[in-house]
């Protein structure tokens, strides 16, 4: 072993260690930020290791440097700008977009190697070795393409650029996707047989498969899909690692792939849905129109902000249930002002966080943290559920499906079995909502019909602002 090989070996080992520590640290609140920086450092270290290895062995040609610099500058610049500019509410879409680009990168690497075989592999032709090469190229292209198109579709759906077309809910879609899957298999074997041109077929068909699988999935399930696609991009990276013979790539890719799978499973558990039903069950709302889940509201009580303020003033314990609507209205700071007033009045305020509130697990935590809500006031579902009967007022802000009692009572409901917050157990429930539209699942919410529920119609931010005014008039929180 000569020096460059030893240096690269040591750096790679160190990078793997740091990446593992980074992922580990990201799972604890205290260490998360440092862990993220550690992982970023490990990534830069791995680049230094690779470049120093080539500098010490074959050398790096001038034109290579030029293209390296062009690619890095453009990619990093756009990434950094987007990361700085994007609002916190669009986090899920942003992660989906980044993820898709990671998949695209793996796809391009495999494509490049497939079209222009690297000189290193040609020297001593070995059937077994070339077979492995073809297989890893195909896997990298297949998974990379699915990751890319799937992530882009997921992003477009979350942004509202794409809705779920009706035809994708029919059984035909399974047939279409099976055709795509078979076609990719054919292209795969054709490619291994040495027919290089079928690589384009593989690219096209697996891209279509990514679209076909993601498009029918309802918005409520999108977080799971993004997490799964995140896992895929890890697998694509590992496959690319086989293509260019890099252990570091394989380890890192495999770690992300496995970690992504675990996270996906955690999310599925939170919604009480299996991965299979998320992927093949289609959108929830499409099922509910067929079942008894939908229907008209019969007993809606609407109330003014003033009444809401009066009830809040008299309360001892208030639980806030935030949802996606809060994020859309960007009302987290206004909410914080309201709760500050209540707290100053000696009212106990707690935030109930459903595991899948918002469009991503942890979405609400991030949002409320932005508004400086103390971490201790955020309670997880299992912790807070027994507290509802002893609670005077529940404020539901832009949450819908996660407070639907149907999930407990109505076995014919598509939501049945999903763990929900038992807000109806509280003395009074106020639902702040723009209109009577259904939640992301498209299912009627029985909560709104209950006698102890009052609807306060309006944009969350505006209602909360009005609420501050009313509380001020009542002298709440002023000494």
């Amino acid at each position, binding site marked *: 072993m000569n020096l460059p090989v030893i240096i690269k070996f040591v750096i790679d080992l160190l990078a793997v260690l740091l990446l593992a520590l980074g992922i580990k640290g990201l799972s604890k609140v205290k260490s998360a930020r440092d862990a993220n920086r550690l992982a970023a450092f490990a990534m830069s270290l791995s*680049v230094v290791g690779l470049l120093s290895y080539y500098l010490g062995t074959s050398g790096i040609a001038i034109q290579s440097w030029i293209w390296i610099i062009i690619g890095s500058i453009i990619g990093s610049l756009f990434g950094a700008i987007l990361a700085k500019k994007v609002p916190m509410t669009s986090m899920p879409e942003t992660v989906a977009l980044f993820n898709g680009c990671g998949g695209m990168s793996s796809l391009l690497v495999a494509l490049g190697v497939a079209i222009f075989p690297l000189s290193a592999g040609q020297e001593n032709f070995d059937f077994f070795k070339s077979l492995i090469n073809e297989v890893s190229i195909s896997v990298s292209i297949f998974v990379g393409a699915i990751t890319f198109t799937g992530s882009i579709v997921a992003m477009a759906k979350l942004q509202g650029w794409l809705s779920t077309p009706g035809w994708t809910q029919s059984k035909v879609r399974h047939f279409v996707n099976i055709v795509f899957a078979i076609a990719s298999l054919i292209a795969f074997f054709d490619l291994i047989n040495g027919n290089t041109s079928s690589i384009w077929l593989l690219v096209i068909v697996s891209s279509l498969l990514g679209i076909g699988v993601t498009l029918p999935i309802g918005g409520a399930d999108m977080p799971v899909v993004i997490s799964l696609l995140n896992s895929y991009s890890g697998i694509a990276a590992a496959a690319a690692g086989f293509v260019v013979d890099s252990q570091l790539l394989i380890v890192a890719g495999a770690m992300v792939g496995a970690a992504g799978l675990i996270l996906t499973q955690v999310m599925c558990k939170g919604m009480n849905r299996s991965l299979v039903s998320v992927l093949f069950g289609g959108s929830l709302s499409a099922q509910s129109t067929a079942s008894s889940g939908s229907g008209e509201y019969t007993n809606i009580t609407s109330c003014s902000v003033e009444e809401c303020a009066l009830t809040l003033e008299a309360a001892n314990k208030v639980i806030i249930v935030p949802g996606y609507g809060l994020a859309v209205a960007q009302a987290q700071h206004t909410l914080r002002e309201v709760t500050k007033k209540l707290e100053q009045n000696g009212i106990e305020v707690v935030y109930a966080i459903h595991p899948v509130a918002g469009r991503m697990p942890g979405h609400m935590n991030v949002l409320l943290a932005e508004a400086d809500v103390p971490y201790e006031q955020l309670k997880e579902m299992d912790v807070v559920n027994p507290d509802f009967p002893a609670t005077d007022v529940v404020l539901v802000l832009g949450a819908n499906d996660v407070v639907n009692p149907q999930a407990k009572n109505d076995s014919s409901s598509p939501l049945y079995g999903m763990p929900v917050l038992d807000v109806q157990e509280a003395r009074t429930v106020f639902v702040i909502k723009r209109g009577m539209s259904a939640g992301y699942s498209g299912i009627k919410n029985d909560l709104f019909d209950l006698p102890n529920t009052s609807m306060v119609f309006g944009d969350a931010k505006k209602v909360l602002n009005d609420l501050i005014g009313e509380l001020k008039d009542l002298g709440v929180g002023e000494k």
Partner: protein
Amino acid sequence: MSFVSLLWVLLLGSLLGLELIGKVPPTLHTPLMSGANAISGITMLAALTLIVKAEANVPLLIIGSVSLGFALFNVVGGFFVTDRMLAMFSRKPSNKK
């Protein structure tokens, strides 16, 4: 490296990934996903390898460069976005009076 040892690397890497995040508070799901996503941009190493080995093959250089751009978009954006999210958690103690 032989294929078999690469498979071992794959296996052990996967097991490591499964072990690493046993218990994660829901708070950290989004940052963890985003951070893991940034790490999956490690394909930038593959793109770099491609560019270095392409020598004078211009189309391959371009493919490698575009691939590198996509990967770095993923890496740089991913880490920044994760940091932004996590900054909100760590900011609180200093604000408390």
